[in-house]
């Protein structure tokens, strides 16, 4: 169907009126540019917002205790309780789909007050008692030394890993923090590592943080085997949200809480929140497709319109061609192919132009530093293929009506028109 002769025919017809062809093509060019740009911007917004989730493992939830709100087994309501270390062991044992369960303890931070000193320098920092696997849930970049290990946990070593802001506050410029001691609430800790928060939701808070082994925290600051709060991450193939009821059930049972007391244990389900944001952006890209497709459609209608005019103008030529032996299908397919070619070429140029604009945007974003809630506008290859598919379909649709009208007239009438 696409022989060289046919190409020549189509190109001759399209180049016969270059300016008009150009203007027609511009409609589709513009439509597809808008479509791709809208999707890229949506994507940029999505990238920006999801990066504010940090790179915390998204299939996670946080849990903490609140007061009970129902009497149960002779215990009053309004009772306060703490998670214990054995809860962590129970959860890990009973629910194997949980990948990580990190008990955490915290000092300072939002609780305020200067709590850390080194020589004459002093500062208020957040002190976290953590287990080694916490680094898998909230990735951080270790700059020097190492993160906590299980032997630290078992030996209850008084060691710490400190953030960049802690270094800035407690050390002189150029001083090596490794091997030095800092005093947290009067207890000396050996600095074994430094870290930088990697692309996180709250880099400032993270950089202000000191990590120490969980067990050391309990012993040094008298919290025993209490757990302040827990960060739980499920295996990739299971949603943490589906595990939540079972987790709650286990914890309620072990702490003698009424099974229907929903207020006793607080939680924040990151995967649910993440899912909501994802859902929002799914809708946004749908809107992008919709609006882009509508703009594209006006371009398509433009092509259809021009093809109708072209067919009208060439009524006589079509009559001549048919007198010379052109079958209706060969006339139809030529009109279809003309509109298809016009759509695809202008669409390709549109996609390239949009890609260029995206490149410029990224270049500006890169050179001017990050912007809040917007990062790396881009479209995937699949979007490009979808756009191309839309183009092909719409090119055919655009040619359909003109192609039919081209052969509707009897050849004798077509020859008679002036």
């Amino acid at each position, binding site marked *: 169907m696409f022989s*060289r*002769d046919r190409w020549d025919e189509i190109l*001759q*017809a399209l180049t*016969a009126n270059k300016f008009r062809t150009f203007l027609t093509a511009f409609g589709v060019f513009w439509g597809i540019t808008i479509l791709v740009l809208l999707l890229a911007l949506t994507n940029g917004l999505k990238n920006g917002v999801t990066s504010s989730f940090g790179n915390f493992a998204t299939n996670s939830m946080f849990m903490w205790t609140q007061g009970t709100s129902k009497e149960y087994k002779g215990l009053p309501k309004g009772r306060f309780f703490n998670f214990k270390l054995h809860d962590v062991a129970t959860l890990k044992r009973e629910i194997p789909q949980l990948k990580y369960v990190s008990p955490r303890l915290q000092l300072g931070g939002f609780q305020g007050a200067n709590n850390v000193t080194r020589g004459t320098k002093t500062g208020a920092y957040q002190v976290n008692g953590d287990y080694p696997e916490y680094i898998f849930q909230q990735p951080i970049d270790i700059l020097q030394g190492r993160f906590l290990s299980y032997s630290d946990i078992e030996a209850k070593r008084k060691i710490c890993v400190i953030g960049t802001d802690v270094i800035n506050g407690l050390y002189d410029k150029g001083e090596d923090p490794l091997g030095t001691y800092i005093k947290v609430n009067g207890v000396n800790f050996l600095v074994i590592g430094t870290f930088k928060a990697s692309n996180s939701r709250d880099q400032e808070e993270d950089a202000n943080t000191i990590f120490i082994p969980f067990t050391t925290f309990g012993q040094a600051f008298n919290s025993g085997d209490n757990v302040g709060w827990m960060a739980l991450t499920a295996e990739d193939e299971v949603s943490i949200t589906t595990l939540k009821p079972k987790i709650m059930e286990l914890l309620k049972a072990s702490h003698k809480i009424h099974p229907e007391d929903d207020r006793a244990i607080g939680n924040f389900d990151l995967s649910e929140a993440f899912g909501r944001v994802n859902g929002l952006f799914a809708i946004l890209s749908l809107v992008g497709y919709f609006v882009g497709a509508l703009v594209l459609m006006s371009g398509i209608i433009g092509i259809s319109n021009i093809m109708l005019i072209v067919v009208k103008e060439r009524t*006589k*030529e079509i*009559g*001549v*061609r*048919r*007198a*010379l*032996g*052109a*079958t*209706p*299908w*060969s006339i139809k397919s030529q009109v279809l192919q003309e509109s298809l070619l016009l759509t695809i070429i202008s669409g390709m140029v549109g996609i390239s132009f949009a890609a260029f604009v995206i490149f410029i945007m990224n270049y500006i974003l890169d050179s001017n530093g990050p912007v809040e809630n917007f990062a790396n506008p881009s479209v995937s290859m699949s979007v490009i293929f979808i756009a191309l598919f839309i183009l092909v379909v719409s090119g055919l649709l655009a040619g359909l009506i003109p192609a039919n009208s081209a*052969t509707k007239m*009897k*050849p*004798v009438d077509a*020859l008679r028109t002036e």
Partner: protein
Amino acid sequence: MIEIKDLQKSYQMGSNSLHVLKGINFNVKEGELVSIMGSSGSGKSTLLNIIGMLDEADQGSYTLDGVPIKNLNEKIAANYRNKFLGFIFQSFNLINYKTALDNVAMPLYYQGVKRKERAEKSMHYLEKVGLADWSHHLPSELSGGQKQRVAIARALASDPKVLLADEPTGALDTKTSYEVMDLIQGINDEGKTILVVTHEDDIAQMTKRIVHLKDGLIIDDSKVEQVRASVHV
């Protein structure tokens, strides 16, 4: 070559029906050069269109080279037109964005002839009408007579059985008309069957047989002494 029996055709003009052909009986043998004459409205163009399969008759039979022409769908009609017939129009009907050579090549293109062979054949026919030097000119760069000669070359290109010329000299001055008729006579001399519709008497005299149409009927059909167009050139 052409056998027509009791051919009738009427057009619906609003509520009135216009009976254009009222029963034509007409035969053309191979190698004839026939002119169809008549005043406007006599039905001569309608007859030519039916012979050219551009239009269909209401009644009667039409056989072309032994092939009955009836109940054609557009695809078959297009094939028959392409194989059997060559058209020459009053207003040339060249495609204005194609060169003379490409115009001549059109019927061959629809026959599916290969590119190279097509160019060779078309060039051959352009030479035949004396326009080899103009092969790469657009119709807008040609004179009326040249355009009609390109059109004749185009009609010949598919080597049809019958040439149908609808007022081939209608848009040309006398001198050019005679040149075109000279060419047509030459083609007829080589054995091609040709039908010419005209209302000019001098053109009709250059054919071998004149058929007079009036009000949808043949009123006169007689052989004439052919006047060679070259006498006038």
